[in-house]
């Protein structure tokens, strides 16, 4: 091999190394084998990547909202929260992937009545709920609940073989922050940052935008400016805005496709906005809902529908359109 050839090989190696290092140092996709990443380890790439096979997704904010938002003359507390959540989720599908959008659509629904992070065969909702006390309402009385130091957790149900995401629920710690536990108050902070206080407000949009990344299967990044950055949150509001690395992630995982706004966003198993009471108002016992599908009982993440799903789809479309119209109408009225 001539010197020139050797140089060419070396240059190629350097370029490959540069690409590899850049890839390893940026975003990661969650995987079925996602586990410990110790010290300087790069992304874990064992197992199947977690992804929504049908990236036409719906979500609903729990109707009881958060204790930290109050009604104003312009909007109810719940409307304010929905506006923050909608904007936070919308950041992801509105990314420009080289002139086109990622193949990802979010359809916000009317409020849910669901503070349970569960996945059932009988119907589901990707719920966003504020919890005080900071534990699942169905947990045992003596169960200590979610970690007291956590501000928010996103629980992702998936098929462990294929990595297809089946359901995702975002739980936000609605307690007052103290030295013994994390929590609020939360606010829709101004662009220049949340005002100081003790404890000061936490920007809800920053939290929801970050958690929405996990909702769609994006793991960590070590790009400091990224919404999905590993350990930093230097200012309160910067995570609202996606960085190039976040945009790269969503474009790579959900490259431009042919989804349209009229797509089918019915959750796996059908839509069930209320997971706590039946249509007749009777409480649904915690052990009553359908258990998670057993082995082989579920075509993970598929868009296959049960016979009744056609009606659910129509209902969902109506609910989604109504919710969107209502929310956009509110914003138009305010602007």
């Amino acid at each position, binding site marked *: 091999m001539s010197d020139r050839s*050797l*140089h060419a090989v*070396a240059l190629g190696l*350097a370029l490959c*190394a*540069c690409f*590899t*290092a850049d890839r*390893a140092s940026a975003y990661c996709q969650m995987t079925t084998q996602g586990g*410990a990443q*110790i*010290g300087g380890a*790069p992304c*874990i790439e064992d197992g199947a990547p*977690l992804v929504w096979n049908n990236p036409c997704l719906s979500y609903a904010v729990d109707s009881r909202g958060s204790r930290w938002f109050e009604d104003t003359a312009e909007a109810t507390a719940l409307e304010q929260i929905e506006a923050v959540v909608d904007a936070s989720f919308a950041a992801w599908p509105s990314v420009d992937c080289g002139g086109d959008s990622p193949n990802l659509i979010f359809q916000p629904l009317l409020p849910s009545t669901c503070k349970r*992070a569960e*996945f059932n065969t009988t119907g589901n909702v990707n719920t966003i709920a504020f919890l005080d006390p900071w534990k*699942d309402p*169905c*947990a*045992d009385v*003596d*169960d*200590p609940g979610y*970690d007291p*130091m*956590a*501000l*928010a*957790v*996103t629980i992702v149900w*998936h098929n462990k*073989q294929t990595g297809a995401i*089946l359901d995702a629920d975002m739980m936000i710690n609605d307690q007052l922050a103290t030295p*013994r*536990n994390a929590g609020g108050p939360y606010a829709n902070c101004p662009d220049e*940052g*949340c005002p*100081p*206080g003790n*404890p*000061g*407000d*936490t920007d809800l949009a920053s939290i929801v935008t970050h958690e929405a990344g*996990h909702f769609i299967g994006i793991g*960590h990044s070590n790009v400091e400016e990224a919404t*999905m950055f*590993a*350990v*930093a*949150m230097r200012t*309160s509001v910067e995570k609202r805005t996606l960085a190039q690395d976040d945009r790269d992630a969503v474009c790579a995982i959900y490259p431009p496709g042919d989804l349209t706004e009229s797509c089918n966003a019915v959750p796996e198993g059908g839509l069930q906005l209320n997971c706590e009471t039946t249509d007749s108002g009777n409480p649904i016992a*915690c*052990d009553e809902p359908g258990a*998670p599908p*057993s*082995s082989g*009982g*579920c075509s*993970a993440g598929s868009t296959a529908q049960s016979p009744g799903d056609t009606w659910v789809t129509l209902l969902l479309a109506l609910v989604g359109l109504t919710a969107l119209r209502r929310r956009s109408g509110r914003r138009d009225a305010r602007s």
Partner: protein
Amino acid sequence: MLRFPLPPGLIGSLLAALLMVGLPTSPANGSIVQGLELQELVAHADRIILGQVLFSESFQRADGQLGTWHRIAVEREIRGSAPDEQEVIVETLGGQMGDIAMRVEGEPSFRVGERVLVFVRDGGPYTAFRPVGMGQGVMRVRREQGVETVTQSREGLMLVRRDAQGRLERSLGALPKKERLDVVLSKLRDIVERNAGGVDE
């Protein structure tokens, strides 16, 4: 022996390639969690145990979620009330049953056979112990070149804390970098003795 002398320019290129491959990366993030300094980690822990993971098994919790129990053989107890106990059960959220799995970013994972230093809080009468601060409460023990080291597990965690003005800011956590096991144990003993007036070993 065959040798292939490399031209100086080529050596530089290869070195650059190796350096770029070896660029450090950060651990994973996920749930947004308040970062705990070592003293805070100790203060929140009902028990601190050095042990070995024997077995892990998923189950369905009362709330319908999946959890995993990890049996840990107690090798040494730095804080706790049952020094003669041989094993403890640590519960983490998330697990797998059949084809279905549930994942909570930020919850620690354990590998059977590995040695860990765990900071756990009491899970109440019907539940097992829980790691403090999600993944922050688990430190992995490794033997490297004859020296035992510990590294804090921060998988799936975004660590934050409030500054003097109450705003969220970066937190480095209890163990920003790998440390010798004996050094960390010594620090822990000091903290426990200072705060509680005794060490269980």
